[in-house]
């Protein structure tokens, strides 16, 4: 099992060394002043308090990058990889609302999946339910990649179509998101329950909010939420508005 490391603090890289608890403890002792010591109780050993498993369908997904993010700011505070059984842990995570995010790396994966949870504090433990990275052939349909089309308006909107197979776990909603080529979001649809979303070209985010978007290259993708709370994102696709 791979333990996640907190990106800030002392000795965190040492703790990330694979091989289990004993080598880690020896390493901490050898490091001497590099360890975190509590007066009168000896060296302090980081305790995993967030655990979970990433799967592909039913099997564990090995060596998947997993991040722990602040749910409000999306700041990454720790990262790790799954072990051959798909398991991961993060240690010494303080109280707060967090998001575990795993990135797809194989053909047929979601682009990413995530799960948000509340943690009472470092003494509390959160066990994340199995998160399935397999996309079950969910895909973007229209518009196709690299297509050029007139910029959408309320009088000539663009239609986004996608396929979310029934084999997937129970879907709560899907949203279409549109980004500038630089990555900033310009629009996010309302929660759709059908595989089709219309956009009239009016930006809802950023400096252009409330105005029709200018011509240029954009990306769109579909974000879905399942009834058990897991969220997943399909791959991005570009399109060019003229």
């Amino acid at each position, binding site marked *: 099992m791979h333990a996640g490391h907190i990106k800030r603090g002392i000795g965190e890289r040492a703790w990330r060394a694979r091989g289990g608890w004993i080598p880690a403890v020896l390493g901490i002792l050898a490091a001497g002043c590099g360890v975190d010591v509590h007066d009168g109780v000896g060296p302090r050993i980081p305790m995993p308090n967030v655990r979970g498993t990433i799967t592909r369908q039913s099997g564990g997904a090995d060596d998947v990058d997993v991040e722990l993010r602040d749910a409000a700011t999306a700041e990454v505070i720790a990262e790790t990889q799954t072990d051959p059984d798909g398991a991961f842990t993060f240690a010494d995570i303080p109280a707060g609302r967090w998001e575990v995010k795993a990135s797809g790396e194989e053909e047929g994966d979601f682009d990413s999946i995530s799960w948000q949870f509340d943690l009472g504090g470092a003494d509390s433990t959160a066990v994340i339910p199995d998160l399935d990275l397999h996309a079950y052939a969910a895909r973007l349909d229209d518009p196709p990649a690299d297509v050029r089309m007139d910029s959408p308006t*309320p*009088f000539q909107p663009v239609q986004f179509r996608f396929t979310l197979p029934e084999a997937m776990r129970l879907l709560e909603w899907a949203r279409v998101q549109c980004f500038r080529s630089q990555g900033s979001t310009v629009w996010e*649809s*309302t929660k759709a329950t059908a595989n089709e979303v*219309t956009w009239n070209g009016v930006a*809802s985010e950023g400096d252009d909010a409330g105005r029709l978007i200018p011509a240029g290259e954009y990306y769109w993708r579909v974000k879905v939420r399942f009834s058990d709370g897991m969220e997943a994102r399909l791959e991005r696709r570009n399109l060019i508005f003229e």
Partner: protein
Amino acid sequence: MASRLGTIRLWLLLALLSPTLGAAGADTWRSFHGDARNSGFTSCDAPFDSLLDWSYVTSDSIGTASPVVGPDETIYIGNADKELVAVSFWGRLRWTFRGEGNFRSSTPAIASDGTLYVGGADGRLYAIGPDGSRKWTFLAHGGIRTSPNIGEDGTIYFGCDDGRLYAVNPDSTRRWVYATADTIRSSPAIGPDGTIFVGSYDGHLYAIWPDGSLRWSAATGGKIKYCSPAVSEEGNVYIGSYDGFVYAFSSDREFLWAYFTDHVVRSSPAIGPEGRIYVGAGDRLLALDAEGHLEWDYSTGGTVISSPAYWGDDDVIGFGSTDGVFYCLHEDGGTDWTFTVGEPILSSPAASCWGNIYIADSGGTLWSFGAGTTDVDPVLVATAPGSIDLRPNPTRGWVELRSRGARPLPERILVHDASGRRVTSLATGGQAQIAWDGSDRRGVRLPVGIYYVRAPGRESASHLMLIR
């Protein structure tokens, strides 16, 4: 007999002297959001404060159905018990009409001949005489949970759960229907050139020519559920959508602007001076300028589904919230006054040119604010002696008000004109006597005539004659 003759002579005199009796009915709130354009704007006076006149409890809940005001100041509202009630200016039931479906979401529209049109959830458009009698019904293919609107030629337009916009002649025959792709819960607005605008669950705002053909349609990014379009005098149309935007279009198919509220928009926009827009979204009332920029917002303790109304002479905005409070704001977003009714308010306020606001809550109660007319009958006002001594009387302006019996005056003294309309409210500070310069609430000298001076809730008034 002498007293009766005196009363008749006095009313004849009042009829001759009253400056507003004829005009009072000319600008009443006869359909949803006040006029055919659904503008939510009135040039009538707003109440000065939260002084409650009366409340009338109907038999069941009231949703987005809103009160309307007839030319004789009768107030009409429907409820979930399939009842449409007519209540007098004094808060007394005039009649009850019972239909076959509930009226909790349909605001009646009053035609020039006094006929009321209201939609029932049973799919019938009801035509009801001013006396509460059933004239006819028109059966649509789905429930009617929108408010009818009346064109200049008397055509009645309404949206229906079957996704169609209906145009019905005043003789109950169908003129045309226009089918959208989904349910219509948005009430049609009629532009200055007769174009009918309506939103649909299919997410589009439709502009329909008066002959029933499509002029244009515009896609929003979400359903248009309960928000009804509002049209300005210039023909610009404003609508909110479940995609969180409030949109502005010109009547000739031009996108003007959109404002992202980050909440579904169920409240219908009201149009203020200089193109300003007032609309509820989430827990806030938003004030947008003519370019769609936020000027201010005002947070309530609930959701603002109620469609605001704007009193142009006083520059105040009134609306309700699901927190059970009716809010009256200044044009800069400051609180003028509030009144807690205790039940969520989904309904839109109705303005009266007699100086009242009428609002309904979801518990089924109709509330009247403003003129301080509790249990006062106009005949009593005209005949019963008042408790306030007025000197000199007649007067050319200044008058001294003194309580008979040397007691302190009531905290507030109301002055009504001959039609019953309140023209000013005087704060006494509990003194035994005060002076008043004969001007109205804005400091404008009142015209010659008879005025009634009284304490709130009292069935008596002192008569004052202003002369020049």
